């Protein structure tokens, strides 16, 4: 049966996103180094005697509670299959332009975005979000692009008419520059906020 200090330490080791050093444990629980070390040992013993699926891993100068490598064959299944990462900001912008003015040529898209959109277009084609919809009958006969049914499915739309209209968008999106910055950084996925 774990004592209060060990419970505190266990909670830290379970919830932390990176290994927790002994110093940090002492700082956060207010105990001394030796007590912290002993608390970690008591946790290990208790986990072992209960036959639990997790162990205390000592990594990079700190501790973390992770699943027992023995059970890797079960856990790995959770992350199998093609789980696509989120669309990048460039891809989203490109997709938005195509969605609202389809069919569109590459030059039109780049005119709106103000930057070269080659790699975004390639990603969108690979991920089956857009497709070629013929050629424009103007000099050079550039290719035209439009969104696919996969696009609708991905965003949960039953048809293109269900795309929010521009005016609705404005009222949805009266965001400050700060908000947009923050959301953009969330979009780029550098923070994965695990807190409930």
């Amino acid at each position, binding site marked *: 049966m774990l004592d209060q200090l060990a419970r505190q330490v266990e909670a830290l080791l379970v919830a932390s996103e990176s290994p927790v050093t002994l110093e940090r444990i002492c700082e956060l629980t207010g105990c001394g180094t030796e007590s912290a070390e002993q608390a970690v040992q008591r946790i290990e013993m208790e986990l072992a005697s209960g036959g639990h699926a997790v162990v205390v891993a000592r990594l990079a100068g700190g501790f973390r509670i992770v699943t027992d490598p023995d059970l890797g064959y079960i856990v790995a299944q959770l992350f199998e299959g093609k789980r696509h990462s989120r669309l990048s900001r460039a891809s989203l912008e490109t997709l*938005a332009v195509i969605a609202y003015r389809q069919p569109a040529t590459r030059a039109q898209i780049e005119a709106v975005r103000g930057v070269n959109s080659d790699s975004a277009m390639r990603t969108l084609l690979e991920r089956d979000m857009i497709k070629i919809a013929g050629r424009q009958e103007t000099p050079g006969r550039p290719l035209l692009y439009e969104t696919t049914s996969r696009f609708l499915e991905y965003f949960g739309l039953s048809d293109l008419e269900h795309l929010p209209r521009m005016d609705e968008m404005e009222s949805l999106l009266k965001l400050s520059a700060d908000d*947009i910055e923050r959301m953009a950084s969330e979009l780029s996925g550098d923070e994965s906020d695990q807190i409930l």
Partner: protein
Amino acid sequence: MSADLQTACRINIQDFEGPLDLLLFLIRRDELDVTTIHVAEVADQYLDYIREAEELNLDIAGEYLVMAATLTRMKSRLLLPVERAIMEDYEDPMDSLMRHLVLYRAFKEVASELRESESIWRDVFTPPGERERYQESVTEVDQDQTSLLDLLLALENMSEKNAPPPEHRIRKPLLSLSECVAILDRTLSTDRQSKFIDAVGENADQAVVVSFFVAILELVKRGWLTAEQRYPFAEITIKRKEERWE
């Protein structure tokens, strides 16, 4: 009015989540029962409160004024026997207001229960998960996948970046009185007079019309403006009297 009371009033109106919230507060304060309240009683309390708040602070959102207009109309209907007879076939508007109050009160209570759950569950933390350990080439985590909102944000972001500012202004759903005053000030800066409908805009919704109407009454009271209406329901013409409004 004493300074203390003024402060109390100002704090209060900002504490309310709208006219229904304020009504519930007044009903509870006077220990009335939502299901048996008398319209005249409640209307008077409400109108008094709004008037006091107005004297202190012009910035009352349009919704509060719409409710004031509704209550006034309900009260005046009670006083008019003729209209009452005509209205016999119709549902008493008070019944629907009462139902609305009961419904809103229930949501308010649920919201405070959610607040309690929030404070419990904010103290609950989950393991970060082991995707990184088991999936090597992972760069970005895809919890709920990209949403429609992300798509819209991307579009918004672009127009912020390089498009010229949009031609049409974003419609503000409701105006505070001080905003109405500012708009009237602008409208009446070139032409010294204007039709009410032109100042307000032809497609203005009910809340906006009421906001402007109350703002005009306030300006008339201060002698900065005159308003003229030849007969009931005729056009209202407003004229600037004072050069500077401040």
